[in-house]
């Protein structure tokens, strides 16, 4: 099996799992317990927290709240920040942000959605026109999970703050963390990340915040995570997250360069009369999104799966949701809108995988044309 759906989830890193296993077995104590076992685990959590923060910025200025997933981090950031006025985001957000913004309507906050460029990145000028003195929150995804387009959130945050210094700036960094070399700037108040996109386990995420930002709690209870997110900590998941991130960040630049080469190689091997490119060249090297002419991505995905290659798709074969919201917002043409395929890579991806995937995609598309032709 060739797994190229790493933007959906990655295989947990075996070494990182090994390193975290003691926290499932011997060191199973509740970190809030006052005997030495509990205190020791608490210390380990503190170190894990500090090491995760160190990849993104100055630990003295930042705080990290562990959550159950990236979506929880997004929801916490949004509902704790957008309490009145309006809130601005983009049409290219992951559902965790997009649906939360839609829900803001029911909480008397006006959601505003900025349009996208063809590659899935946000139209910054349009976004800025939506920001006014009543804006309480601006949320811009760092890497678009469907097209791989990268938004320059440092510049966007600076421009937003220049227009309204009091609003809070959040970014969903789930597809960027551990993949793009990047440091949080002072204009970015909140940043969401997730473990299972970089070799950690599902069920662990984090919300990173500027220390000086006051945020309302998301789960009330025993006061864990500085009172912002109560509930006994997912110690194993967190230790695995820290170990996976350590490994991932150690090779972040080398992976970046190599995968960029793979991404271009894959696109060059895809037949151009079938596949059109959606991902921009300056997007994340981890994602190549293409669209097949007059075919359905979901069916292609199944034919690829029969050929041993697992990829993602942008559309579902459903009359209720025939096309992806984000891909539609990118303005992809009618012939291509249903045919979206997303190849997403990990450091484990090999050149052989790329060659096989291109072969399978070309073959599957040709097969589908033949099977659905009218004589």
């Amino acid at each position, binding site marked *: 099996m060739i797994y190229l759906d790493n933007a959906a989830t990655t295989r947990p890193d075996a070494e990182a799992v090994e390193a975290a296993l003691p926290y499932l077995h011997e060191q199973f104590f509740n970190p809030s317990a006052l005997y030495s076992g509990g205190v020791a685990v608490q210390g380990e959590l503190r170190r894990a927290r500090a090491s995760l923060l160190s990849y993104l910025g100055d630990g003295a200025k930042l705080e990290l709240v562990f959550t159950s997933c990236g979506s929880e981090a997004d929801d916490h950031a949004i509902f704790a920040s957008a309490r009145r006025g309006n809130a601005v985001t983009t049409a290219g957000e992951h559902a965790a942000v997009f649906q939360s913004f839609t829900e803001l309507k029911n909480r008397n906050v006006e959601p505003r959605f900025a349009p996208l460029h063809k590659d899935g990145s946000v139209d910054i000028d349009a976004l800025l026109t939506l920001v006014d003195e009543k804006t309480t929150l601006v949320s811009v995804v760092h890497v678009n999970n469907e097209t791989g387009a990268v938004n320059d959130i440092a510049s966007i945050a600076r421009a937003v703050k220049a227009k309204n210094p009091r609003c809070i700036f959040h970014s969903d960094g789930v597809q960027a963390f551990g993949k793009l070399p990047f440091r949080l700037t002072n204009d970015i108040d909140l940043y969401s990340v997730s473990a299972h996109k970089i070799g950690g386990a599902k069920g662990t995420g984090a919300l990173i915040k500027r220390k000086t930002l006051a945020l309302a709690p998301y789960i009330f209870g025993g006061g864990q995570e500085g009172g912002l997110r109560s509930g006994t900590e997912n110690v194993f998941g967190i230790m695995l997250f820290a170990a996976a991130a350590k490994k991932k960040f150690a090779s972040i630049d080398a992976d970046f360069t190599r995968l960029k080469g793979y991404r271009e190689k894959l696109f060059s091997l895809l037949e151009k009369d079938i596949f059109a490119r959606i991902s921009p060249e300056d997007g994340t090297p981890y994602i190549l999104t293409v669209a097949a002419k007059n075919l359905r991505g979901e069916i292609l995905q199944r034919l690829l799966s029969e050929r041993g290659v697992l990829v993602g798709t942008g559309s579902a074969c459903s009359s209720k949701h025939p096309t992806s919201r984000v891909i539609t917002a990118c303005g992809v043409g009618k012939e291509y809108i249903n045919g979206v395929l997303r190849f997403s890579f990990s450091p484990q991806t090999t050149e052989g995988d790329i060659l096989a995937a291109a072969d399978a995609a070309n073959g599957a598309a040709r097969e589908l044309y033949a099977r*659905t032709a009218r004589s």
Partner: protein
Amino acid sequence: MQKVIIIRYAEIHLKGKNRGYFERVFSVNLERALKGLKHELHRLSGRYLVACFDENRTEEICERISRVFGVHSYSVGLETGTSMGELFEAAKVVCPQEGTFKVDTHRADKKYPKTSMQLNAEVGGYLLSQFPALKVDVHMPAHTVYLDIRENATALVFSKFEAGVGGMPVGTSGKGVLLISGGIDSPVAGYMMAKRGMSVELLHFHSYPYTNDGAKEKVKELAKELARFSHSARLTTLNVAHIQEEIHAKCAPELNVTLLRRFMYRLAEKFARSIGGQCLITGESLGQVASQTIEGITSSNAVVTLPVLRPLIGFDKDEIIAISRRIGTYETSVLPYEDCCTVFLPEFPAIKPKLSFVEEEEGRLDVERLMEEAFASKEVYDLNEI
């Protein structure tokens, strides 16, 4: 004194000399419904008694009984001796402590030393002495305490009748093959026929790779939900993707659906004959969609000789949805998976296909070969294991 559930059956008493057979099937179905829960099932004259069960699971047992076709009503009550002391004690347990009430005695044991009227008066008097807030009203009582004096010196005492699902025991009215899609209608059609005592075999057509495994999982889920009533044991699936491809490639586009349905009927009949099925069951409702017109139905019917039962033919969608909600299949039915991919859907399907045109277009296809191919894709799922 022990807690029991009294089950009364519907219609079975109408069946004259076949009654023994109906009762046997009914008790097998009750046992199957209660499988996995500790209990004893006793047959009394005209009713069944569930005893020796875990009282903490009474609600669960009642829930399961309420789904068995043939159950007219049931009551949770007490089985006790027939001495006055025992009757008093049991009546006190089942009787509410306030409001209007009466006592209603039935004596199967005609040798019992007291008459029904005497028992009503004595037990009623005792209850009044115990619960001062009670008041007798023999015409419109809010509560009735029923005493059923059995012949073996036992009595059943209860105060409520719960309605059963009615119908006839599944297995007493032959065997049919339900064409189950992932939609709202077909599970309801299966429910209706099971209610009339038919054993329902489930057959689903998919068109992988044009439909996905999520759609198949949804049908499995629906099949399991329906099986709570119908006790269907299996779900069989056939892949019709290649048939769709051939129709799409060779025939008039407006007939895509009509022709596919003819294949589905043929395949269903072939399947039915292979398992001793006596009819096909579909969820069609007249005029609901383009293929469910009388012309559409005529063109499908023309390819089979087994009867096709359409229990929903005269139902409105709202009525079907109401049943679907009641039997608990609605929520699964509306999950967003397509049972038939839109790839091959014509823009303008023929609403009134002429049979001669349909047959002419079908003539372009190798029907026998396509049938064999589809039949070879058969997969069978045991509903107890999914």
